[in-house]
């Protein structure tokens, strides 16, 4: 069997999008990949292939300062930027995405299907996402619910023409809108991973995802990587050395990682508000 490095090299020029609404297990998956590729995990040195909304990558490919472009002008160039970036990639890339699957004003998808190998869509019960997202944004639960229910919710978007963030603005839609944008599109094949299933059987689910991507990896290797990327280890690492991806206003990025923790954290009113808003998609994903 070819080594993982050889397999990834043979598939170079394409990308696997690791797409998710925030706080749905994307960092866990990236840590798992890091463990699988390098045999170790340092949460501050996760060497998967960046984030789709990277301003540095955009500027490097376009030779211009994207801070001088408005949001729509950026969107018009995103697909081309990734096509160009992937021409020089040395392996199949795994790139984190929080954007919804959307189109620019010409109706062209911002994710170029010709260089997209697959999308691993990571989803988590929105009721568990709420409290975690509130912590992540240093906001109240009510504010997190409002953002998750907002049809045109954004991440890293600054108001009134400010473009200071080192990430480009990311249109996410609502939580349901995000899920449906990825699961309903027909251009890129989707591998769906429910956080709750992965929590229950990490080895089986990570192995399945890799197999569906087209990579051959033994279960033993997956088991070793899962052990290195265990939630408790990541949390301990954050306590010891900090985590650069954490919002400076909050105590920790890795909180409880539990499934069903919402029962202790949300009021019945809040649960009702979320489930009424997202019933259709929650049912589709077996959360109701």
């Amino acid at each position, binding site marked *: 069997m070819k080594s993982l490095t050889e397999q990834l090299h043979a598939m170079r020029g394409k990308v696997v999008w690791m797409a998710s609404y925030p706080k749905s297990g994307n960092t866990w998956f990236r840590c798992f990949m890091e463990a699988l590729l390098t045999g170790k995990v340092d949460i*501050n*040195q996760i060497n998967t292939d960046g984030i789709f909304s990277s*301003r*540095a990558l955009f*500027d*490097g*490919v*376009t*030779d*211009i*300062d994207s*801070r*001088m*472009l*408005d949001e729509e*002008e950026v969107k*018009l*160039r995103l697909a*081309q*930027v990734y*096509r*160009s970036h992937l021409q020089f990639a040395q392996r199949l890339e795994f790139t984190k995405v929080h954007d919804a699957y959307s189109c620019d004003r010409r109706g062209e998808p911002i994710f170029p299907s010709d260089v997209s190998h697959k999308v691993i869509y990571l989803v988590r019960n929105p009721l568990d996402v709420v409290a975690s997202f509130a912590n992540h944004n240093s906001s109240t639960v009510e504010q997190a619910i409002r953002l998750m229910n907002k049809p045109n919710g954004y991440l890293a978007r600054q108001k*009134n*023409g*400010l*473009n*200071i*963030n*080192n990430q480009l603005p990311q249109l996410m839609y609502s939580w349901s809108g995000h899920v449906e944008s990825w699961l309903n599109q027909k251009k890129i094949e989707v591998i769906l991973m429910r956080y709750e299933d992965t929590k229950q059987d990490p080895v089986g689910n990570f192995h399945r995802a890799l197999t569906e991507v087209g990579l051959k990896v033994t279960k033993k290797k997956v088991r070793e990587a899962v052990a290195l990327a265990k939630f408790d280890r990541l949390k301990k690492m954050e306590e010891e*050395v*900090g*985590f*650069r*991806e*954490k*919002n*400076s206003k909050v105590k920790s990025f890795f909180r409880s990682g539990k499934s069903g923790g919402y029962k202790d954290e949300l009021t019945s009113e809040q649960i009702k508000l979320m489930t009424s808003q997202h019933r259709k998609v929650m049912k589709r994903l077996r959360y109701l």
Partner: protein
Amino acid sequence: MIYQYTVYGLRVACRFKLSDYPQSPTDLPPEVVIRKRKLQRPPEDLPQTVYKPYSVFNADFYFLEVSHIARYLVEGSDRIYLEKLDGATWGDVFTFLFDSVFTIMLIKNERFVFHASAVAFGRQAIMFCAGGGMGKSTLAASLAANRGARIIEDDKCLLQYNRRSSAFQIRNHFPFIELWRPQTGFTKKISGIGKGRLVRKNIAKFRFPIDQHVLSRATRLHKIVLINMNQMEDKIEYEQLTGIQKVQAVKNFSHLDHLVNALGKGRAHFRAISDIVKGVEVHRVSKSRTTKLSKFIKFIEDEIID
């Protein structure tokens, strides 16, 4: 009617006004001429040429398309052609002309500008090199507003060797400072700053004239401070570099450094950087993504300025 300008020391002439950039009439012939012309992306099969989605270049030319705004062509070391695209304003066209396109022209003339701001404390200048969005302009404005520094440049710095003093010097070439809306308050505390106006529609960055603020003479470069992002959570790291470390580190902060080799100027660039770092202190400071700018500026003031 011919309009004449001096852009980073190059005499530039064109038949149209370059927005609010100040003119500088001279009897000397121009070193660079800018003309309007219809432009097309160069053919796809040229030898030893780099093809990117929006730019094409080799040792002879550099073509850039900023879609829906303009096309630019730098030919040789003395010609720039530009074409405004439908829907764009001339202000939009000049925004990118003064950024990437002029940097390319300067590289072609072996003038390597740093992506940096600079301030003078008395007769000594400090240059702060950093990528976009790291707070170069804010740092310069803050030091001018709160510590009595004189702003020299806020985004790109050209260093020039002075034979008499055997040292590199820096002076103002771009007579504006550009600040994002939340930072514009600094300008009220700095003498000689003019009224600001938006750089582009929908972009909350303001351009303030500083020609009444800056010194007309050049100032000797004393320190280079390289600002990086580290991988830590809210931690500032600091070190002073020595020897070959200085060359390697400073080189990366030339504006559009990644294009220099393909433009045929790799050797000249390396030589220029090696000469510059010989006589100056080079400090490297890194901050994390989560470090507040105010905390970082305080660190610079306490550890590097004092």
